[in-house]
């Protein structure tokens, strides 16, 4: 049994006028000591998946199907009070948006100490020591002095590291990291990814690493889930998927990455845009943008099919050229 199990998760946006499906049939397991990377286009539903797991969907979003289990226990139907105890202590979250995760009126230290003492039996003095250690671990120079500064006195990347320190404050079993390194330069990024790997290994934590950066996934994740328009279109071991993407969308993502040394004036882009929730085309949601689409692709949404270790939701995975 995996530490975190997501089964057939569906999330709808429900308004007076209509109900729109934003996530559909999301199934994913994360073991203790494992890092699963979640990638996909902006708006694919990555952050929504994270929000659903920690019970922080914002109305009109709501879970309308499926189940989420933590260490075997279903947490999908728990009330707000029970979820609040789980958040921070058992599931730590690094939010995509560092500014809203931080209170501008409190110093970084006040926020860290508050979080630590809420979750762990510690005196304020001990909590302050731990807070400084956490800031050091995330690579903030002069942590002992920086701790008394306000969020606006930090650079974008430094605020992001403070958010990471906050997520780790309660020593959680599961870490949901939503774009934890997006605002960071390569060397700090390397440091943060090392830290995530170390936590995962030493604390046997399960990590869901949400990112649009395939480079980050390549070097950090054990397995990858590729999302498109509210569904997972391909999952499997990182090396298998990056070495030979089978879903045409995954292959397109791989080709869009700029690399140093590549002198093309334009990057390969996947034509068109991802459909918004509620406006999905018939059949495969990627169909209208897919270079390998065949007439039968519009029939019904493809179900995931196993190819070795990899699950692919595509009718014609063999038409995708090895990238």
């Amino acid at each position: 049994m995996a530490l975190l199990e997501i089964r057939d998760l569906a999330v709808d946006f429900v308004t007076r006028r209509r109900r729109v499906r934003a996530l559909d049939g999301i199934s994913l397991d994360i073991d203790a000591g494992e890092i699963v990377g979640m990638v996909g286009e902006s708006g694919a539903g990555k952050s929504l998946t994270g929000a659903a797991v920690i019970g922080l969907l914002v109305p009109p979003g709501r879970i309308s199907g499926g189940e989420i289990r933590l260490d075997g226990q279903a947490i999908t139907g728990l009330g707000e009070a029970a979820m609040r105890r789980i958040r921070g202590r058992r599931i730590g979250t690094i939010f995509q948006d560092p500014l809203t995760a931080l209170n501008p009126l409190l110093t970084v230290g006040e926020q860290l100490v508050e979080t630590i003492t809420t979750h762990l039996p510690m005196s304020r003095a001990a909590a302050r020591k731990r807070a400084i250690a956490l800031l050091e671990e995330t690579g903030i120079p002069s942590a002992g002095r920086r701790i008394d500064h306000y969020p606006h006195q930090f650079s974008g990347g430094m605020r992001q590291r403070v958010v990471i320190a906050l997520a780790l404050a309660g020593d959680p079993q599961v870490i949901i990291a939503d774009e934890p390194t997006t605002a960071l330069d390569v060397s700090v990024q390397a440091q943060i990814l090392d830290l995530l790997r170390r936590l995962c290994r030493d604390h046997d934590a399960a990590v869901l690493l949400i990112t649009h950066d395939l480079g980050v996934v390549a070097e950090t994740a054990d397995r990858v889930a590729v999302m498109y328009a509210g569904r997972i279109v391909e999952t499997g071991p990182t090396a298998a998927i990056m070495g030979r993407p089978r879903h045409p969308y995954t292959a397109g993502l791989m080709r869009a990455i700029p690399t140093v040394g590549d002198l093309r004036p334009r990057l390969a882009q996947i034509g068109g845009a991802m459909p918004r929730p509620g406006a999905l085309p018939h059949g495969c949601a990627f169909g209208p943008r897919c270079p390998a689409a065949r007439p039968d692709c519009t029939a019904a949404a493809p179900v995931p099919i196993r190819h070795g270790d990899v699950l692919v939701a595509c009718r014609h995975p063999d038409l995708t050229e090895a990238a």
Partner: protein
Amino acid sequence: MMLLDARDLACTFPLPRSLPDRLARRPRPGIAAVAGVTLGVARGETLGLVGESGCGKSTLARLIVGLHRPSAGSLAFDGTVVAPTVRDRPPALRRRLQMIFQDPYASLNPRWRVGDIIAEPLAEQPDAPPPAARREHAAELLARVGLSAADARRHPHEFSGGQRQRIAIARALSTGPDFLVCDEPTSALDVSVQAQVLNLMRDLQEAEGLTFLLISHNLAVIHHMANRIGVMYLGRLVEIGEKTDVFARPRHPYTRALLATLPRLDGVRRPREAVAGEVPSALSPPSGCHFHPRCPFARARCRVEAPALADGVACHGIAEGWIPS
């Protein structure tokens, strides 16, 4: 002639003084976020700016668009010295000089509709077109960044992180600027949207002769977009040069270390070599050359004297020839 010319631009943020400091009458401490940067950006080019988190890239960007008041130095745009803060700059200059911010969450007013957010910089112009024309313009801009005209009626919270960044880009484009400061414009975007945005920036540059100052921690993005590259370290510009030269033959020891951190994309996990040594603190920067505690080539002079930028590099070892090129 350069379209933008910064001379010795500096910005120090004051910090609160502790009680012992005040008793001892010690001077008010400060963070020298930008410490004397001189650079020019030529019309129609893309200058890429790289450097570690906290080295002052965003502060430099904000100085250029007038969101911080410089503590020293001057800025000229199109041959004329400009007022330090945006409030004192004429609308015509504000129209020409726009910025895309690093944080797409903080830069969009949550209570406004997207259409109004996009049209705002245009609406504050003295010769602003009437509201109907502005709405039409906003719809066009939305389409240009890969969103739909119908999105104009929505609020920012209904969009994902990447979608919000596209809204921010549409807004910056609304006044038809000729100089755009882009602070991490695609770092919140996935690669396929990033490819669209970068291609869009290129198209705009070709069609309208736009000039970019592009800040990114993604060296591949910089390599793809920039004509020239500036490298910052702890508030100072340590190297600047043609992109091809800097990537092929980085000269400053920091640039060399930075380029060695390039990630690879083959699905094989390997620990990445971060630049060795502690990231120094902007609160108490090292003496002399700020890089000396991490520099494998450092000599006695480096600890006492800050090297000046000469021939595109600020390094004693390069200037005196003890570092092999």
